[in-house]
């Protein structure tokens, strides 16, 4: 039984608002774009609640690449990162519009924006197609909060960061799990996983994904979910927010594994967003 939860009574704002997304231009694979301003000066101390990231480039090639989106504060040339989100771009031949995630809710609000802050963002991605225009916005709620919001003063982080996703390939028998693949070794602070993107490239493949903790060969499953591949392939970038973030204890080894419905090898890649603490868990 659960009958008491927190609820927001505050307005969410967008930056920039009532205007096209701010555009950044890539500088090659896993090289940061320049910082581009989202807001010249915040009106009040605020909590970052999400990002929007996408591109409308022509679909002349199959592009499947993670994108790191970094939010920063500071004057031009002096930006300091306050959070990094990872999303995924997937676009197929003759499908210029197909891609995965666009808006990513932060789930845990990032309590790191101060009144007067200049807010900017930059992106990097894994494709060698260059230059490409990527586009972004961000959402926030001004403080003081009237209602209650799940927040942290730590940055949003992602794994992996600045490199290709974790990758697993199933065997050729349906519903047989792969071996566990390590995401984090058994060291480090606690983690609260808020978002995961699984990308797979085969039509309608029903992929079960598990997170597990524990030493190698002794992993215990803590979370299982499903991703379904797009029929044309290459377009799935199915992100899943975890509104009840997945807790990984400090110094716990974190791993993942997959199985699918096909009697054929199927490949999936994974990335996660997480924070290391929650102010009001």
């Amino acid at each position: 039984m659960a009958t008491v939860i927190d609820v927001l009574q505050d307005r969410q704002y967008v930056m920039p608002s009532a205007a096209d997304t701010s555009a950044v231009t890539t500088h090659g694979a896993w090289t940061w774009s320049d910082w581009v301003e989202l807001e010249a000066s915040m009106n009040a101390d605020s909590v970052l609640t999400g990002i929007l990231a996408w591109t409308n480039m022509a679909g002349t090639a199959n592009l499947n690449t993670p994108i790191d989106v970094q939010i920063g504060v500071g004057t031009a040339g002096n930006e300091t990162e306050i959070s990094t989100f990872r999303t995924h771009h997937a676009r197929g031949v003759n499908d210029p519009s197909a891609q995965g995630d666009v808006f990513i809710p932060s789930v845990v609000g990032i309590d790191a924006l101060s009144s007067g802050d200049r807010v900017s963002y930059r992106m990097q991605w894994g494709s060698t197609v260059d230059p490409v225009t990527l586009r972004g916005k961000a959402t926030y709620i001004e403080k003081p909060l009237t209602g209650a919001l799940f927040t942290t003063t730590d940055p949003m982080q992602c794994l992996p960061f600045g490199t290709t996703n974790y990758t697993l390939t199933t065997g050729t028998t349906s519903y047989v799990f792969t071996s566990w693949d390590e995401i984090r070794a058994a060291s480090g602070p606690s983690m609260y996983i808020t978002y995961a993107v699984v990308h797979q490239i085969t039509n309608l493949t029903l992929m079960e994904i598990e997170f597990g903790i524990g030493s190698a060969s002794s992993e215990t499953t803590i979370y299982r979910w499903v991703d379904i591949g797009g029929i044309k392939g290459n377009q799935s970038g199915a992100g899943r927010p975890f509104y009840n973030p997945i807790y990984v204890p400090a110094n716990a080894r974190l791993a993942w594994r997959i199985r699918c419905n096909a009697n054929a090898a199927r490949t999936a890649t994974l990335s996660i967003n997480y924070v290391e603490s929650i102010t009001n868990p």
Partner: protein
Amino acid sequence: MSRYTAGPTLLTPTAAAQVQLDVTGISFATWGDWTEYIASTANPTTLLGISAHTNGGGGVSAEIAFGLGAAGNEVEIGKFAYHIISGGNGGPQTYTLQVPISGIEAGQRLCLRQRQDTGTGVFVVLHYAEDFDSDYCLDYDVSPMNCLPLASVGTSLTPSSTAWANSSWVELTSGLSDAIGIASFMLGGYLAAANDTEYEFDIGTGAASSETVIWTQPGVNLDGVTRREPPVDALSSLRYVPSNTRIAVRLRKQGTSTTAWTFKMNYYGPIHLQATGTMFPFWGDHTHIGGGMMPFMG
């Protein structure tokens, strides 16, 4: 207890083909039959969400309902609007409940059903947990999940012909008898003229012509023809709206197209606000636990 979870979470079916919800003769006017997912819950059960696809069929605007009860006597315990993207186009196809649905005791038969606009088959995997270790959830018989408008693809929104100019406000409800917590939005329909269009919509409360914006949500409609637009735009936490409060929506976007968009909203209610210093939790009149079920609205 806390909002986060250390698991484990479960799926049904698992290691097996997805279950197709009954689609015979359905429309928004006619629900499909209930499809059994769990014959008898082994432990207290909490619903976390679904993954769905149309097996290569087109996109679907649907309402997905959960039910409990013996065959032929199922009672709806909650429902939500969901945009199932065309099977050809991938993208997010999992709807994670912003607040899990709890209060399902052991020994319950759990079913799903749908109503929708196209009659296309929908295949669903249910995400759930037993003895869920988080108390960030709401009992079905206290604050059930619902959507509005009911039984349609949504409220029609006609955009301005000027880029990024607001549409008129369109009323979603003149006021619900209970206070609610807004969970997510579903913006869609067949938006043939609006591919790759960035948009924002405002949720406002108050009398006509005196609306106050309480939430602004950005997004991108990637391709309305085949429904690649996001199935939902979700809030990180529920947004409280008092009872008997008029709720309206308006849209602004890139471009000059005035092709109408559609809009639906998922919410939980009734909720009751309790002021406890800086925290504003809510609770319901928990008049019933387990056994039978209270009839569901809508």
